[in-house]
């Protein structure tokens, strides 16, 4: 920058003309929404998740429709076409982590914490903004995925309707599941405060550890495994119910409990630690 503006005095501020208002939760939410929407990476990851879930759903719909009679029960079930959420959860989870750790990586958190020095409203506002964005994008994504995939299956005479028993729960539930995984990523981001560490922790928690528990011999490990967030969540978003999984609504409660617990820990640490 070679052109330097001549220094000008601050505009005089009369008594009735206050430039700044008190900080409150609504203003903190609006700040977080500006932060979310003004990063190109937010939209890239979000679009990738939307496209990924839909495209995978259509492929599954076509293939499972074609070879329907040879399918395993969980693939033949209506929820089988929603399995693009395995990819979707990684993208949404990473986005959740990044929304928080991006601030630590760049130092933005220092600006954030000076603007809202009580800190907890930021945690709440970020969760609210992210949760709403995720639900508003992922629930329609899942509905479109299901309707499209069932159109393929109907072509082969195996379609089911969204209104049939349990299907609405599964389809909307998959959107909610994805939003919850994103929120879990956000909470882990607050705890770990580092992008690589946050992503590894999240993937470890939702993909690696539950599998490890399942391969351990003995029943105790398997009975713990179903309580991990991804396993609990998958009970909620499946139309088939195996004996070693939680019931759908218990699964949802367990998953929400994970997210809440992670945010409580995140909040305690955020209050206690130096920025």
């Amino acid at each position, binding site marked *: 920058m070679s052109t*330097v503006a001549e*220094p000008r005095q601050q505009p005089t501020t009369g008594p009735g003309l206050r430039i700044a208002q008190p900080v409150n939760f609504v203003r903190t939410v609006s700040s977080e929404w500006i932060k979310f929407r003004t990063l190109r*990476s937010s939209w890239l990851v979000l679009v990738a998740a939307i496209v990924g879930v839909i495209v995978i759903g259509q492929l599954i719909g076509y293939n499972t429709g074609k070879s329907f009679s040879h399918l395993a029960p969980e693939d033949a079930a209506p929820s089988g076409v929603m399995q693009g959420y395995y990819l979707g959860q990684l993208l949404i989870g990473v986005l959740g982590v990044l929304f928080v750790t991006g601030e630590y990586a760049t*130092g933005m958190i220092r*600006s954030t914490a*000076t603007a*809202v020095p009580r800190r907890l409203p930021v945690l709440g506002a970020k969760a609210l903004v992210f949760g709403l964005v995720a639900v508003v994008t992922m629930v329609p994504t899942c509905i479109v995925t299901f309707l499209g995939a069932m159109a393929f299956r109907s072509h082969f005479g195996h379609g089911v309707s969204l209104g049939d028993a349990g299907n609405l729960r599964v389809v909307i539930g998959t959107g909610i599941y994805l939003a919850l995984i994103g929120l879990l990523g956000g909470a882990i981001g607050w705890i770990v405060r580092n992008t690589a560490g946050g992503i590894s922790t999240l993937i470890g928690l939702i993909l690696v550890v539950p599998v490890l528990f399942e391969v351990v011999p003995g029943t105790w490990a398997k009975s713990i495994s179903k309580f991990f967030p991804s396993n609990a969540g998958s009970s909620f978003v499946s139309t088939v119910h195996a004996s070693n999984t939680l019931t759908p609504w218990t699964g949802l409660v367990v998953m929400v409990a994970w997210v809440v617990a992670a945010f409580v820990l995140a909040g305690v640490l955020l209050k206690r630690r130096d920025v």
Partner: protein
Amino acid sequence: MIEARELTKKYGEKTAVDGVTFTVRPGIVTGFLGPNGAGKSTTMRMIVGLDAPTSGSVTVNGKSYAAHASPLHEVGVLLEARAVHTGRSAESHLLAMAATAGISRRRVQEVIELVGLQDVARKRVGAFSLGMGQRLGIAAALLGDPQTIMLDEPVNGLDPEGVRWVRHLLRGLAEEGRTVFVSSHLMSEMALTADHLIVVGRGRLIRDMSVSDFISSASSESVRVRSPQATELRELLLGKGATVSSSARNELDVVGLSTDEIGTTAAAAGLTLHELSPVQASLEEAFMELTGEAVEYRSHTAEESAA
């Protein structure tokens, strides 16, 4: 107004700020001076609540920073460490900050123009030079029309024109009656910008006085003398109670006698002088001397406690 009382910060074993008490008053520019690692940035982070003090307290306008309803209106701060997301534009960054305090878009444009970033306001901050980054930081500090402005090493990375601009801006803000607190590790910069100085070294408060008092108290005057008969002259001057050192052959540095007294002494003994000139220790030297004291004091107490 910033009031620090016995402010202390320890990071594990390391004491970054050690029982510092000071008051920063409105209407003047207060310089916060100390060599690198003296604890200036840590003190400023504690003032805005980013770091919690280990003990002691600090208030801004009578309350802790976090207790204010509209913190950006109380203190505008430029930190030394990066504090902007590199993926966002300068304008988006300021809009996000502004939103927390209901500050208008018009005000955001105003501070962008004030710091001269209007041509690059929509570019990603990641592409900014150090100087542009500093300007953005200053814009963010001014956003809430704060009563207190606190800048940590603001001229880092600025070109000479930018340095002059900051100086001008700070003086203007102080003239409006605001509290201006600005840190630097350069005495020369503070001598030009500040009215009052708070000097720290190794986490401790060393001086809290006006710049003019600091300059007159801290700088010792000496006289440089060149003479082909330096050895004889040296004996004579020592006899008169002066402190004499020598940095080159035939050259003496005399403390404690005026040029008149030295000239008269030399003439009375029939000694030839080639140079007789008063030397004012530079501000930078005075500052080094002061903070050097703090270092000595520290290592001394360390030895004592180890014994």
